[in-house]
């Protein structure tokens, strides 16, 4: 029983990070129909920016996170304005190629700027806590809590603010949104900014329990794509559910099936869900 709960906790903490990354990805896809492969690179740069301002400027972890959120949001907006926006009338294939291009560029840039070494982000939340016989580090608890807080804030923003509603309107029906006078450029900039911000937040949360290196984004982005396909491309509840589902499935799969098939579980899950519900759990559009 202890093992079960411990693995559930492990799965949820991994799932939280997956979810945050998948949320940004699914929003960009839902609103702009761009499969943003560069999202993993935003995640990676986000981790490096946090680490750099923490070590060079000596900023506190949370302050550094906010800084990084703004930097990566701007980076995402920049990539939209410089790359995706000029391609808005091109075919999806070109979007995809552009996305992979940005990914490779950012990865190479990180290697030039920070080197190929593995880095570690030290925080003061490294202590072990025991709750109900379970072992967990403070950082993992923080990930769990912060993910929920960020999701709640996103929900509030999309539901209760005018701009948020405009984003949803845009995702539901582009022409309709244009007709009622929603500015497509503003929405696209905002969507990219939010997605970048989420990536930076996720990276900053996950880095202290992981290592920082130029290829770190690839690990997460693969899983994030699986999640948004499982959840229904463009669906926010789908990304949340899919993220936790994948995290927990991985950790239980490793425990009760076999550790050797851990990586396959994501794809088996994908096959099963697409067989039963070909459009994903929450098909269609941003809800």
């Amino acid at each position, binding site marked *: 029983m202890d093992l079960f709960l411990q693995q559930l906790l492990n799965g949820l903490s991994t799932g939280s990070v997956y979810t945050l990354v998948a949320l940004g990805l699914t929003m960009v896809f839902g609103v702009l*129909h761009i499969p943003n492969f560069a999202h993993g690179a935003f995640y990676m740069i986000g981790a490096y920016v946090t680490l750099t301002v923490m070590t060079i400027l000596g900023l506190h972890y949370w302050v550094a996170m906010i800084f990084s959120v703004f930097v990566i949001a701007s980076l995402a907006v920049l990539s939209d304005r410089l790359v995706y926006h000029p391609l808005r009338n091109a075919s999806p294939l070109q979007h995809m190629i552009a996305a992979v291009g940005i990914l490779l560029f950012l990865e190479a840039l990180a290697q030039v700027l920070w080197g190929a070494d593995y880095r570690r982000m030290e925080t003061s939340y490294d202590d072990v806590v025991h709750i109900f016989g379970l072992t967990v580090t403070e950082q993992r608890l923080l990930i769990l809590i912060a993910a929920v807080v960020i999701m709640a804030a996103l929900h509030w923003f999309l539901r209760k603010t005018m701009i948020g509603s405009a984003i949803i309107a845009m995702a539901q029906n582009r022409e309709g949104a244009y007709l009622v006078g929603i500015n497509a450029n503003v929405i696209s900039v905002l969507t990219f900014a939010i997605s970048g911000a989420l990536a930076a937040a996720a990276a900053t949360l996950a880095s202290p329990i992981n290592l920082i290196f130029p290829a770190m984004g690839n690990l997460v982005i693969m899983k994030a794509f699986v999640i948004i396909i499982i959840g229904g491309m463009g669906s926010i509840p789908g990304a949340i559910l899919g993220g936790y589902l994948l995290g927990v499935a991985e950790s239980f799969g490793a425990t009760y099936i076999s550790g050797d098939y851990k990586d396959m579980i994501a794809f088996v899950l994908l096959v099963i869900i697409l067989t039963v519900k070909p459009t994903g759990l929450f098909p269609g559009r941003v809800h």
Partner: protein
Amino acid sequence: MVKIRKLQLLVLTVLLAFSLTGCLSQSMDSTSAGGGKKNEEEAKTETPEVAEGEKVVNIGYSGPLSGPAALYGQNVLNGIEMAAKEINNSGGFKVGGQTYKINLVALDDKYLPNETGTNAKRLVQEKDTSIVFIPHSGGVLASQVFNEKDEFIIGAYTSEPRIEKQNNALTVGIPPKYSNYPEMFSEYAMKKFGKRLAVLPTATQYGKDWTETLVPVWKKMGGEVVYKTEIDFNKETDFYSTVTNALDKKPDVLFVGGPSEPTALVMKQAKQLGFKGGFMVMDQAKMEEMAKVLGGYDKLNGMIGVKPVRENNEPGTANFVKTYESKYKKLATSESAFNYQSLYVFVEAMKAAGTVDEPKKIMAGMDEGIKNLPKEKSIYPLEGITQKGGFIWPPHVAAVEDGKVVIIEGDKK
């Protein structure tokens, strides 16, 4: 709707392609994958200044200089480069009355054996190199197919014993083979911590081979394996669940390994989850790098692994560590040290053989070269070379006890 479905299909296809290339390169790598995406990158050291009457001898290198394994490849290259520059700055070396300077030609193979093969061919045909350093088993095995015919010596920096089984007359195995370690590791760990072993190596060919060498030794000594899996450092974002499962079987000792930093993280997580036993660490992970990433040797208590280079007592050790660290601004590890010392041995062998471009004669001069190695360039005690071309080093093993490095003496070869 149709558009979205089409896009979904497209994304799936790309995803599949990504994961396939990931698997492809990973199955051949020994540390990491995904290198195939980068452009070819050529890193050359500056051509040495040649005075009148001096000649240049080209020494080749083919290893990962981009992609996830770049760090490792760079460390190896740094060692060779440092030796080459030292030799050039001290006026080169003399073979049969002719002074030579070294021009190191480094090519990036992204850790892919097929690229190593191409690079080695290029080096021999365009640069006429008679020695090519290759720091990974896949690349070595690929080049062993044609190096005898094309006449060049492979400076093989890999602890994989299989490279010796090819009976290749022109291969020099630089580092100690890992088949030396299992007995010493097992003996120490079993005596100190107990007989229950959980095996969690890196999911690469190197990791599998290491495990296959270790497990029989452990069982022969009366131990049992209570849990066995692999950790794929290229795919897994979090090792917590794997470590939790391993610890659930109540092991006394964990066998871990892979690149230093992620391996250190696995150990850290095991300790966080309450593990109090010992760790046997594969030779790819370097104690000093692990201590650096975790913030001190006290975080590594209970581990046995390869000895940090600075713990050697050879005449050249201290000087090498100091010079290397001030020059490259990073920790000196065995990767750089072994290759540094090897280039000096090769140079001595060329002197002894009286030629810089006849590989067979150079090979015949290796014994002499090892004897003539200047004392101050000896970082590890090099005892000789086997019939099969492997350097003979005494085992260099150390453990960490109470936050201190303890040298484990062994007389087994």
